[in-house]
């Protein structure tokens, strides 16, 4: 008996729409998988397999008990097959009647009390609250309510979890890019590429001399402690902070003060206007843009007026740097332009800001000028000078700022 032709077309379209709506919600996870099957199985369990106590039978047994619990002397048989026995029974009963009536009264009394107790017990059985702890029922209800709440908002919860997971993955990826944990030692790396300790001591001797009268000094990223050593030689109170625990141990063995830690955190930890100097040698090219600007501002707060800050880094104005040194260190993030860095220091409030150019490329690397008085030679030499300036500008600069 097909009646589909009776149905109005819009209802047919509606049925199709409803069907695809269910499919969409299933696919998106809004409807839990197998929900219909689980609901059907749940009802099967309830309706076919769960015990239902038969209280009706108990009730009718109680009624029957009530009818029988009536004790009376008249219900005791007095028949006898012995001639005259019946009269004898009656006479004996009459003699005992006072006692019998007394006993019967007690039995009836007891039976009534017993029936009452049984009645109360049956009533208690019928009322689940009396044998199921009401607190427990309340707790079960609240659990149901919470589960229903979660079921009601599966879309948003799933989306929120997916979003969080995505963000955590992104953050982890960023962190992986930021952190670099090589299996080789930083000391070996420094030996290979930064020069010997003696060379470094020689190189920074003049810079350290600037800090006389500017103690205490905080050397952020103190490495193997060359600058700290120079400061100590000058009698300037100083301590270093360094991420590499092996390097810190080396510094401490030299009798110098250093600790493992993050530079910005160490700087933040000292009282305002308590430092005479801050040193950042070959550090800021390892930092993020945000860390650079934060560090400058915090350093300003921690330096007392007249305090000195020296910040040495690679010079991005020298293209030679990119070819020879910058990418040798895999932990370099980006070079910082001296003009920008000077701007940041001035904006932070430093009184004077100057740039000291350092480490010009070796003479033999620089393009030679022809020398000569002819106009062609002069043009050639001017061009060479311009190319040299671009390619072979000093490899490093130190920004020297006074608060």
């Amino acid at each position, binding site marked *: 008996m097909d*009646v589909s032709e009776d149905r109005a077309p819009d*209802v047919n379209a*509606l049925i199709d729409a409803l069907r695809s709506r269910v499919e969409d919600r299933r696919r998106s996870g809004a409807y839990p998988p197998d929900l219909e099957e689980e609901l059907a199985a749940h*009802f099967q369990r309830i*309706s076919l397999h769960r015990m239902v106590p038969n209280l009706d039978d108990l009730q009718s047994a109680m009624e029957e008990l009530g009818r029988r619990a009536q004790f009376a002397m008249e219900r005791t048989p007095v028949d006898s097959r012995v001639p005259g026995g019946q009269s004898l029974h009656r006479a004996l009963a009459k003699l005992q009647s006072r006692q019998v009536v007394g006993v019967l009264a007690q039995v009836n009394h007891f039976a009534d009390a017993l029936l009452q107790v049984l009645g109360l017990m049956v009533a208690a059985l019928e009322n689940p609250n009396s044998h199921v702890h009401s607190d427990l029922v309340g707790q079960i209800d609240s659990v149901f309510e919470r589960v229903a709440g979660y079921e009601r908002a599966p879309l948003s919860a799933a989306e929120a979890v997916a979003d969080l997971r995505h963000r955590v993955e992104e953050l982890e990826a960023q962190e992986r890019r930021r952190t670099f944990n090589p299996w080789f030692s930083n000391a070996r790396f420094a030996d290979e590429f930064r020069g010997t300790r003696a060379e470094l001591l020689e190189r920074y001797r003049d810079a350290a001399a600037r800090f006389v009268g500017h103690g205490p000094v905080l050397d952020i990223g103190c490495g193997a402690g060359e600058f700290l050593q120079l400061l100590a030689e000058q009698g300037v109170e100083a301590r270093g902070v360094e991420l590499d625990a092996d390097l810190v141990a080396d510094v401490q063995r030299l009798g110098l003060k250093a600790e493992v830690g993050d530079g910005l955190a160490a700087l933040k930890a000292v009282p305002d206007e308590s430092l005479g100097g801050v040193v950042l040698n070959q550090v800021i090219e390892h930092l993020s843009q945000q860390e650079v600007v934060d560090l400058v501002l915090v350093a300003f707060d921690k330096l007392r007026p007249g305090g000195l800050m020296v910040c040495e880094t690679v010079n991005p104005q020298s293209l030679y740097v990119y070819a020879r040194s910058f990418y040798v260190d895999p932990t370099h993030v980006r070079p910082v332009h001296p003009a920008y860095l000077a701007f940041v220091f001035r904006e932070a409030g430093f009184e004077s800001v100057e740039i000291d150019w350092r480490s010009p490329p070796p003479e033999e690397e620089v393009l030679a000028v022809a020398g000569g008085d002819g106009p062609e030679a002069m043009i050639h030499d001017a061009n060479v000078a311009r190319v040299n300036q671009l390619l072979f500008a000093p490899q490093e600069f130190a920004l020297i700022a006074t608060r």
Partner: protein
Amino acid sequence: MEIHQVLVAASPGDAITNAALDLRDLLRDVCPSEVYARFYDARVADEVRPLREFRHRQAAHPEDNILIFHASIGEPEVFTFLQERPERLVIVHHNISPAEPFLPYDPAFAGLLDGGRRELAALARRAELALADSRFNAHDLLSLGYRNVRVAPLILDVDRLQRVEPHEPTVHHLDENVKGPVALFVGQLLPHKRPDFLIQAYHALVTYLEPDTHLIVVGASRLPRYATAIDLLVKELNLPRAWLAGRVSDGQLSAFYRRADLFFTASEHEGFCAPLLEAMAFRVPVLARSFAAIPETVGDAGVLLPADAGPLMAGEAMAELIGNDRLRAGLVARGDERVRHFNLERARTAVLGHLLEML
């Protein structure tokens, strides 16, 4: 000549009892007519006579008289009575519920239903005329071996409940405590009516789509164990807005229909399903599943879910009926036409017409 009707059971508000009493009043214009029942509710004792009395009836030519038997369940005593009587026999088939869904809950009742079908088949040779209130039931009769089968609509006073004053405390309760949309089901809590499906669909609706919707389930159950299971299902799915109202008065039912935003039956077996038309008469949009005679009764005036649609799709359909005003308006308008189609006079004329052919 006399025309009497025989029922297995009669109770107030029951569609078959009402149809029999209505027909009796019509027949009384023509000849003596009574309604006899093997079992009856005390509230209809003034209208219905006990079947045992029938034997004492004096009739000069009983073979000229007509007995109309309303078939809806098996009953050995009624069957024997019908087999042995000399009167001409007419069967009105209201359909017998399938036995299988009842087996796990009440094997004895399932046996009665099975017996009912066997008895109905055995009466085929005796019956001169068989009336079915749906084409679905007519097919059923033909498959049982009946020959002279006609379709005549159920004599149903669709507007009866409209004239019943809504029960004031119920109206007050609905106004005060029932906020949000209301879905209504009216029908006995029996396995083939699938109240479990209804509640699962409602669960999907309030959990994922329309959390504020209420469900009112009206109807008694003659299977205590099944009723307990339905009750437990509602509790365990945590559906505080579902109300298993049980058997209610006409006044309460009228209040429920007036408040309802949609009527949903998940039933898988109906010979006619009068509540669908009652809902339409109250201008409540109707949702049902394509089973048995339901598509015939609903016509184009409701949303019919295909038989393979699960509770989730039913939940979606309920949400659509709640939220889609254009759809609601369209269904209500078609419902009005449908109710006119099943009007009382047409049904009376059809049944009387078929009976008169026999004379």
